[in-house]
């Protein structure tokens, strides 16, 4: 990759982040009278606290990596879908199903040795997530039901399912609030820092595997061809239906792994009201990373750093953590309005395979693949 191409490739994401920080700064200044009186310097102190909360100490760095882990996995789940021309908004549901399955199996084998308990609990999360991702894939392949709608609906079905399971059959006896029993020996070992758990490694390993699958295998080639042109893929003897089901199932697998990692690696049990925005965060990560595994790794780390640092920002500068959601949305806005960013900074389009992102949602009327 030539330097010139790298600059073109990175220019839009970097500018989108920069512009989002500017918008965030304006919001902070405008709202500063509500915090500690009008203070034009608030963005500086807030961003300084954000950076020190994310990178300022070994503990902060661990926290950044741990926060980035589910984001990277969810980002890959969305990004792989993009490559096949599918928009997986179901990360949230797949994450929850994976988490609750890992919590259930983890609790059931909590007294077994870790060598047995951990793989079993992880496997449960991964299989449940993959199965939940397979449903929209199957519906899309054989009935044409658009995955955007079905995955959104499945998110809410998953929320209700978790509510039922944790307040009902999975409820821990004697706990003061509705939660699943502790996962005991199925908890992931802490490898570094205070909570740098084994799950971090899965995210790190998933990135090269996803890259290899997408760019060095036949099935990856099929996925990308179906994404670029389903008709051409069919003409070439490829199997769009199989690719749809496989891609969404793999996405579900990754999101389920993220859910299992959070339960087994951090909380050790699942509360009834477990809520997560990881599905939508994954969309931001995937778009910011241009649907490329390595880009997703970087953007996942960036967003993880923002999440990790936001607590210190709230404590030190008094800026509520919700500002991170605003920044994330604004980043997405400038990525979507790429045209606008190019016009502001007078840069030319990078000739990379990002065009497919703009044609993801051609239509959500039913189009059953032939």
């Amino acid at each position, binding site marked *: 990759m030539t330097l010139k191409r790298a600059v073109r490739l990175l220019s839009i994401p970097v500018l989108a982040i920069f512009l989002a920080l500017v918008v965030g700064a304006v919001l902070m200044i405008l709202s500063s009278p509500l915090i500690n009186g009008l203070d034009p310097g608030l963005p500086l102190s807030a961003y300084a606290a954000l950076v020190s909360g994310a990178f300022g100490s070994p503990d902060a760095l661990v926290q950044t990596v741990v926060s980035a882990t589910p984001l990277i996995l969810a980002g890959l789940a969305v990004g792989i879908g993009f490559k096949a021309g599918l928009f997986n908004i179901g990360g949230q549901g797949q994450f929850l199903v994976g988490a609750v399955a890992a919590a259930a199996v983890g609790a059931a084998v909590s007294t077994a040795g870790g060598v047995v308990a951990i793989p079993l609990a992880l496997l449960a999360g991964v299989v449940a997530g993959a199965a939940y991702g397979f449903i929209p894939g199957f519906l899309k392949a054989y009935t044409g039901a658009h995955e955007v709608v079905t995955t959104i609906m499945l998110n809410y079905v998953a929320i209700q399912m978790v509510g039922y399971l944790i307040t009902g059959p999975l409820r821990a006896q004697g706990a003061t609030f509705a939660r699943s029993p502790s996962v005991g020996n199925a908890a992931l070992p802490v490898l570094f820092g205070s909570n740098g758990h084994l799950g971090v490694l899965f995210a790190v390993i998933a990135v090269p595997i996803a890259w290899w699958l997408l760019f060095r295998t036949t099935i990856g080639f099929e996925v990308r061809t179906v994404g670029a042109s389903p008709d051409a893929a069919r003409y070439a003897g490829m199997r769009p239906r199989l690719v749809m089901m496989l891609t969404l199932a793999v996405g579900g697998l990754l999101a389920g792994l993220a859910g299992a990692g959070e339960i087994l690696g951090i909380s050790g049990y699942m509360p009834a009201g477990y809520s997560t925005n990881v599905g939508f965060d994954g969309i931001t990560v995937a778009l910011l990373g241009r649907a490329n595994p390595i880009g997703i790794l970087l953007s996942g780390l960036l967003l993880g750093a923002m999440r990790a640092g936001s607590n210190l920002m709230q404590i030190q500068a008094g800026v509520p953590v919700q*500002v991170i959601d605003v920044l994330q949305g604004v980043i997405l806005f400038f990525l*979507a309005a790429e045209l606008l960013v190019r016009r502001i900074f007078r840069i030319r389009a990078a000739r990379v395979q990002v065009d497919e992102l703009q044609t993801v949602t*051609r239509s959500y009327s039913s189009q059953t693949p032939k």
Partner: protein
Amino acid sequence: MDFVLHLPVIGLLLQFVGYLVVVSVQNGNLIITLATPIGLGALCGFMNERSGVVNIGIEGMMLTAAFIAWYVAALAGQVLPAGTPGPLGITLPLLVGLAAALAAGVLVSALHAWLSITVRADQIISGTIINIVALGITGYLGLLISQNSPSSAGNFSSLSLPAGVDGIPVLGWLLNTVIEHGPITLSMLVGVVVLQVLLYRSRWGLRTRAVGEHPRAAETVGIDVIALRYRNVLLGGLLAGLAGAWFTIEYGNSFQGGMTNGRGFIALAALIFGRWTPVGAVGAALLFGVADALGTAIRQGPPTGDLGTFLTAVPPQLFSALPYIVTIVVLAGVVGRSVAPAADGQPYERESKAT
């Protein structure tokens, strides 16, 4: 086929239908009240999608409008005299809040329209942006504001019929269920009829359907596709604004972060389940309301006998999940099929002028 074996099932089914009717009749007023934001949200989606613009940002639009309605009404309450509330509890600050909510709905819709029609960005991503930013910014400001000046301008009240009307058999119930509501709910009930008639009986409706199904053909007969899409998306914003205002100045009188709690997505489900028509969408919202009321009724006072044993064994979460499940089912065409407007989600690009 052992016919006798099936009899108890049929008996149970009939009992269930009877129970369903009783629950719906008893809770009619509440069902319509709670269906209001979902129905209005679905009508907003209708305005977008029938003209070919996918909108999954209804949730964010409603949340923004809910916040604006509450905050602007509270601010207006500090400067404007509240006076004695008029009919339906209408005061000047509340009207100012309502107007601001409508404006907010239109403004957020303008962003969606601009991104999806002019910039031709991915419409799903545009909706996602709206949801994320709305959740963040209203949560952020809501937190900061409630720390400083927690105040409220109150809320609209329901229309009250003269005493005695409720006592009239059937008619009394009907009036109570359909008429005794706040202004926003009443405007949904009127709006759905108006939109349904306009969609199939007016020039605007014909053009909207044409633009949503086949924009190229519409353009060749002289319809300005871009302008019509803009107009409909902005008008849809008014409906999302109304839906948002319902949360903070009609049903309740305060704002909490994330208070729409997924109703924008149920609205999307209602739109699809109602096959992209106004009456269908609002009907679906009401049906979802019945399922919800059923879940509550079973928890509070289950029917006696076998039916009670059976229904209390069903997890209440199943009733809450029902709207989403039936939406997937109709979208997949397992039982009847719901088909989106053909050009839904496709950005329109004019053919370049001949040189």
